[in-house]
């Protein structure tokens, strides 16, 4: 892990009216690192991600990009810096083919005409380097499976050559095989030296690919753990805020029952 974080949030706060959504949150993302962002519903994960993506500007605190302070007021600012966000609902156009979706909004042009050949070539190269396998880059998105769509959505985030990629629940609603494909892809992003923020409710996925787990609870930091020396229970405890919670009680009950 390199020393300087590519993106650092220091003391970030965000209010919506009377609701204090984020209080004094710190988060660091290093190049080539997957940081899982976990927390219960309403813990502030989505709000935090949206402040980075420029959807909600922060009220207090500092965002540092490669060591210098920046302001992110609009989604455009985040894209300019090199933050790409893959939202849960993917935002693909079903009627367009894979190439058109990958380049939507930034088509390659040749004398002001869309350069289909160059786009198709680059799309194939990109999908090949990510070892993404889809039947053809010229079929409409509608004929792809859920996992393939997720993979295309992530690949699309990479077209702009970002440095940080935010994945919002990329494995929700995916089958076993497809989840594995997406997790493989997350690892390949790390190998390419990108910083990845992974929002997930699935602890198995988090343990499988994340380097560190940042836990949010009630809009505050509740610990950052290196994945390899942290147990499942420790993370759960941090998420729920206590060692005595529904999960541990259930485990104790089942353990007793077995005895």
């Amino acid at each position: 892990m390199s020393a300087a974080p590519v993106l650092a949030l220091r003391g970030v706060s965000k209010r919506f009216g009377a609701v204090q959504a984020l209080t004094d949150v710190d988060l660091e993302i290093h190049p080539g690192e997957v940081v899982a962002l976990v927390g219960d519903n309403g813990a502030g994960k989505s709000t935090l991600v949206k402040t980075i993506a420029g959807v909600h500007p922060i009220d207090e605190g500092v965002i540092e990009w490669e060591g210098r302070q920046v302001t992110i007021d609009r989604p455009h600012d985040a894209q300019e810096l090199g933050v790409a966000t893959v939202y849960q609902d993917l935002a693909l156009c079903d009627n367009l083919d894979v190439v058109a979706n990958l380049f939507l909004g930034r088509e390659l042009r040749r004398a002001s005409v869309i350069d289909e050949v160059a786009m198709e070539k680059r799309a194939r190269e990109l999908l090949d380097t990510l070892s993404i396998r889809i039947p053809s880059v010229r079929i409409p998105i509608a004929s792809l499976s859920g996992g393939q769509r997720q993979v295309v959505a992530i690949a699309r985030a990479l077209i702009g050559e970002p440095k940080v990629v935010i994945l919002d629940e990329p494995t929700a609603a995916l089958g076993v095989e497809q989840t594995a494909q997406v997790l493989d892809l997350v690892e390949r992003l790390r190998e390419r030296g990108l910083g990845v923020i992974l929002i997930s409710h699935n602890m198995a996925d988090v343990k499988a690919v994340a380097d560190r787990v940042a836990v949010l609870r009630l809009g505050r930091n509740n610990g950052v753990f290196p994945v390899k020396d942290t147990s499942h229970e420790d993370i759960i405890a941090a998420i729920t805020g206590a060692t005595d919670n529904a999960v541990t009680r259930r485990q104790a009950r089942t353990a007793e029952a077995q005895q």
Partner: protein
Amino acid sequence: MSDTVKNPAPAVAESAAPIPAVDPRLLVREEGLKGYLTEFQRKVRGGELGSIPVILGLIAIGVIFQSLDGSFLSADSLSNISIYVAGQGIMAVGIVFVLLLGEIDLSVGSVAGVGAAVWAVLSVSHGMSDGLAVLIAIAAGAAIGALHGFFFAKIGVPAFVVTLAGFLGWSGLQIWLMGGEGSINTPGGSLVEQLTNYYFEDIAAAYGLAIAATAAYLGSMLLDGRRRRAAGLLGRPVSEIALRTGLVGVLALVAAYELNQSRGLPLALVIFLAVLVLADFVVRRTTYGRQIFAVGGNAEAARRAGINVDKVRITVFVIAGTLAVVGGLFIASLSGGATKSLGAGNTLMNVIAAAVIGGTSLFGGRGKIWSALLGMLVIQSIQQGLNLLNMASEIQYMIIGAVLLAAVVIDSVSRRTQKSAGRT
């Protein structure tokens, strides 16, 4: 570090082996004509009918009417059809743009009427120069379209309602503009009169256009194929290029021959074809066209991709309004002048029906500009055939209605087949 948690299942180990270049599940297309035919067969079975139903329909129409009345396929009859399709066909091109967006424009008939009235009042009643009056009429169409687009995109009124209001409002304006006069005749030799009455009588014109169009079609396919191969991508096989060029070439030359047998190449057809080629280019090859498809497919995705959705929506309605007026001028030329009822009646239905019969989806994001030509040919041939048989207009309405229903049924059924075959 992730080795400890990575699932060491055999499936993962296998995927580390060299990955085949092509997904084994993908039906790889064979090179050559055989590959083209099997691909075609698979598409038809999967419900991607494309233009096949329309072309079969046109052939059926030709056979039926020719057997009922021997003059249907005569040169003069075909020449007439080629003139009659131009006006409403140009309006249908505008409708295809709106349908690609997933919206509808119910006002094009009235807008055509307003355009013709503006031109006639300015040019004939006020003695303004012909060209200037035409330009002002077209600009009025663009302004009307912009107004529709503004209410739809910025205020959020459904396009259906905005253009329905326009349908009533603009036909009121048209009648008001015409004032006391029931109709204003087009002066002989004026620009608008020439639109549907000028013919390039030199037989070289029709043949030249046919040959040039075929050559341009062939050239663009060869050029594209060379670039694709240079980039290491699969291009169209030579046999497919030959087949396509042959079909287009034969059709173009037969059409040119028939037109030359009659009065020569009509100016109206040339303008209509030019509008089609230009619109097709905009829709398929420019960023703007791609944006129209994106907004029609998933407006929210388009917005997040940085596309200015409102701008796309407004400009599409501007295009529809502009082309409606251009079409209206053709209709005025054909009927000998602007009237209080120009563009009323079944004009609107014909135009929308043409786009849908030609294969453009009513649900947005799917369709081709050329469907305006194909659909208009179907409608106009039926009308021409029924006229030759002296069929009453009420029967014509019923038959056109049935054809429209059949087209939408084919669209819906093929969409269902496509869904079950995993395609859109």
